[in-house]
């Protein structure tokens, strides 16, 4: 990962600087001048914002960026910003919870002091009869009451001459709330990461339908007369619907009649009769679509996420290594929250997604063992870990020694947590972990997968095996802090922890491979606190790939190729360079 804070982070005496921008909207017209048809005497003009607009038909929206900096440091000359941030931004980090969906949302909270201001922000301040009263934030709240999900950019970096925002590290959030002033005359703006917009009360898939039958529907009928709200049309044909917990396939839609209807599909029962004005819901059907395409579809087409935030090329690379077989053949009969759907997919297909605010990207990564052979950076007590920051403890919260995977749902309209509603059950178990030589007790996790079809046993087995390898043993949680000079790691990255607090049986310092699950900017631009989940090391087990045809023999292979590729020796002797032969276990 490239250096987040740039070369300035390595300077002694680097001067902290941070800046917040929020994008709202205003009108580009001039009051009373075409196309604005507003009329009124001087000093009664609007404030060029929607809330005060008196000619909304001709309102011409442009983006208005407000910029804020701390109220206690030197301001770059000429920077158009309000120096009213009263303390360090409080950054609540996103937390990656293995296979628990989108994880904990990242957020930031910015606190501002209110202040008096001559209101040159008002486009018509020169002609107002009375000078502006009140305060900056008081007027702002009245003029811009609409702010949810607008961008909030937090720049963290160091003062440089000349000042250039391109030299700063950007974190992107979206405004969740603006509140205040409080009893101390302070305002706060809370921003959340983009995945907050997917919460179940905001976005759903499939999109809700607004249609209803105009005639009773009796068994055997293959034609449905209906009406619908013009804002919620059905497709022209070949789609699935749900009426009263019965799923049907529609061949053709004439606009008033659904024809060629196949009744009682997907394991649902053909009901005796559906009453007139029964609600009709269009279903969302995935016909053997790869998991990353499903997630992309949900985020973009149903979640409203800008595809610019999805590094799909990276997703494809991850898919090509670990998720090629993960296809979805499933139907969603009723609207469900996007958050919930993606959480299910993450759990049932063993991958994680999270928002990287420093790159403004939604990351996707499979639960996979490849890190054991990667060469992650090493961090140690002498050069990296800050004083009194290392903490290592056992954490069996997410330990799994026995995994029960139910898949092949019978009826998608019935309970999805009832084992009786699933055709297949796959049980995977780490007997050694449960034995009296190790943990001695089982830790059972049940997964009810409506996203694995009954005939996807091979995929199901791969998923449970990966989950068990990651989760059955040696669960440790690692905490440490780093100076900004070492911030070339972030959430989701793998590192090696080398500390006196990790020792082998002989007392020598040992190493712990760790995946970063949480990053907190304790002092922006200065101190960063990390949490990680140790990657269990299984002695004698090595994960490798069948090599490409054009790879060289072992003697000519690079170190990286030797580490990840599968080479065959003569079985008895070491490789020419002294390397141990690979053994298949």
């Amino acid at each position, binding site marked *: 990962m490239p250096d987040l804070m740039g070369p300035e982070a390595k300077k002694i005496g680097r001067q902290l600087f941070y800046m917040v921008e929020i994008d709202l909207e205003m009108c580009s017209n001039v009051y009373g001048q075409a196309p604005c048809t507003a009329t009124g005497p001087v000093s009664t003009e609007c404030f060029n914002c929607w809330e005060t607009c008196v000619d909304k038909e001709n309102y011409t929206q442009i983006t208005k960026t407000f910029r804020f900096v701390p109220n206690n440091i030197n301001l770059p000359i000429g920077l158009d910003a309000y*120096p009213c941030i009263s303390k360090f931004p409080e950054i609540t980090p996103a937390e990656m919870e293995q296979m628990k969906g989108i994880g904990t949302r990242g957020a930031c909270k910015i606190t501002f002091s209110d202040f008096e201001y*001559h209101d040159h922000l008002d486009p018509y301040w020169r002609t107002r009869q009375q000078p502006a009263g009140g305060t900056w934030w008081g007027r702002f709240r009245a003029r811009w009451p609409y702010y949810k999900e607008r961008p909030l950019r937090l720049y963290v970096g160091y003062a440089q001459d000349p000042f250039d925002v391109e030299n700063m590290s950007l974190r992107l959030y979206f405004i969740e709330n603006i509140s205040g002033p409080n009893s101390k005359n302070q305002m706060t703006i809370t921003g959340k990461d983009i995945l907050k917009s997917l919460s179940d009360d905001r976005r759903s898939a499939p999109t809700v339908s607004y249609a209803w039958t105009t005639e009773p529907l009796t068994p055997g009928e293959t034609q449905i007369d209906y009406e619908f709200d013009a804002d919620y049309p059905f497709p022209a044909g070949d789609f699935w619907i749900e009426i009263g917990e019965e799923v049907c396939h529609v061949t053709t839609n004439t606009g008033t009649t659904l024809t060629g209807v196949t009744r009682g599909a997907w394991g649902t029962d053909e009901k005796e009769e559906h009453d007139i004005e029964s609600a009709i819901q269009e279903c969302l059907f995935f016909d053997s679509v790869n998991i990353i395409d499903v997630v992309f579809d949900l985020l973009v087409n149903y979640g409203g996420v800008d595809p610019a935030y999805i590094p799909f090329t990276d997703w494809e690379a991850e898919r090509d290594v670990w998720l090629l077989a993960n296809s979805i053949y499933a139907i969603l009969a009723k609207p469900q929250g996007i958050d919930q759907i993606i959480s299910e997919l993450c759990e049932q297909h063993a991958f994680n997604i999270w928002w990287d605010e420093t790159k403004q990207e939604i990351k996707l990564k499979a639960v996979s063992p490849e890190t054991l052979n990667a060469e992650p950076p090493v961090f140690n007590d002498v050069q990296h870990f800050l004083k009194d920051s290392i903490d290592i403890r056992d954490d069996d919260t997410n330990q799994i020694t026995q995994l029960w995977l139910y898949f092949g749902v019978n009826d998608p309209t019935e309970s999805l947590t009832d084992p009786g509603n699933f055709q297949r059950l796959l049980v995977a178990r780490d007997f050694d972990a449960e034995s009296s030589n190790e943990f001695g007790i089982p830790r059972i996790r049940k997964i009810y997968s409506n996203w694995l079809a009954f005939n996807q046993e091979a995929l199901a087995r791969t998923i449970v095996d990966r989950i068990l390898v990651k989760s059955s043993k040696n669960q440790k949680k690692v905490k440490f802090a780093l100076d900004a000079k070492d911030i070339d790691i972030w959430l989701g990255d793998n590192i090696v922890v080398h500390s006196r607090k990790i020792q082998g049986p002989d007392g020598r310092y040992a190493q712990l491979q760790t995946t970063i699950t949480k990053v907190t900017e304790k002092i922006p631009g200065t101190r960063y606190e990390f949490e990680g989940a140790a990657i269990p090391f299984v002695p004698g087990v090595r994960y490798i790939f069948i090599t490409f045809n054009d790879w060289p023999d072992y003697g000519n292979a690079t170190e990286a190729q030797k580490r990840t590729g599968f080479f065959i020796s003569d079985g008895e002797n070491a490789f020419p360079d002294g390397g141990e032969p690979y053994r298949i276990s």
Partner: protein
Amino acid sequence: MTAYLGFRNLIPEGTVTAAEMEGFEKENAFDWFTYTWWRTNESQQTFRYHVEFEAPVNVNYYGVAAHNLNVGGDNIRLQYSLDNIDWVDFAPIHWPETNAPIFVLGSAPAAQYWRFTINQFGTEPPYLGVLSFGEILELPEGIRAPFTPPPAAVNDEIYNMESATGQFLGRSVERFGYKIDIKQDQLDPNWIRENWYEIAQMLSTQAFFYSWNQEEYPDDAVYAWLDDKMPIPKYTNSIMMEFLIKARALHLIRWF
């Protein structure tokens, strides 16, 4: 060694004429804020900030703060005119070598027309945050020890980072400007009675220029504003009074 306060600003009382960029209006130059600037949109090398009064006014100082004249090697001077035709320099042209506040004393007859003339040598017009001119307030006493000259009174927060084994790993600095004390003691109570109301009014409503030793260290001048509670002058004995103003100040805007 004479200390001065420069807070009487005549500009708001006059009619200002100056070319301006959008967002950098001429009024920004006398709002006392250091985060708003006037900037001309003229493209010629020499441009002016002109102020006309209804009647002649007396001026014996001018101040400039929150500027970047030094970046382009620009210069500035205050001029006056009795007829709005012939102009006379109030003081020699000032060539600032840094972005520290400019505080200049001078003398001139009462005049109705005043202007700042700026010669631009850089590629872009400079930003000027605060412009002020008027009559100075001379403090009756010099500044006594113990005392820290304002440019040395930095108010930085330091964050040191040490490793688990005690190695020095890094340091961040948060700059809070400058923190100064302006103390006057052994004052004639009559001086307090004549001047304190105006000083208090100023402290509560605006910022000011301050020079602790204009004769020997004119570059030590700062642009300051009250930091703490309103100071209260008090008697130290039966015939003398004192006051202490605690202020935050702007001197050099320090960046790497």
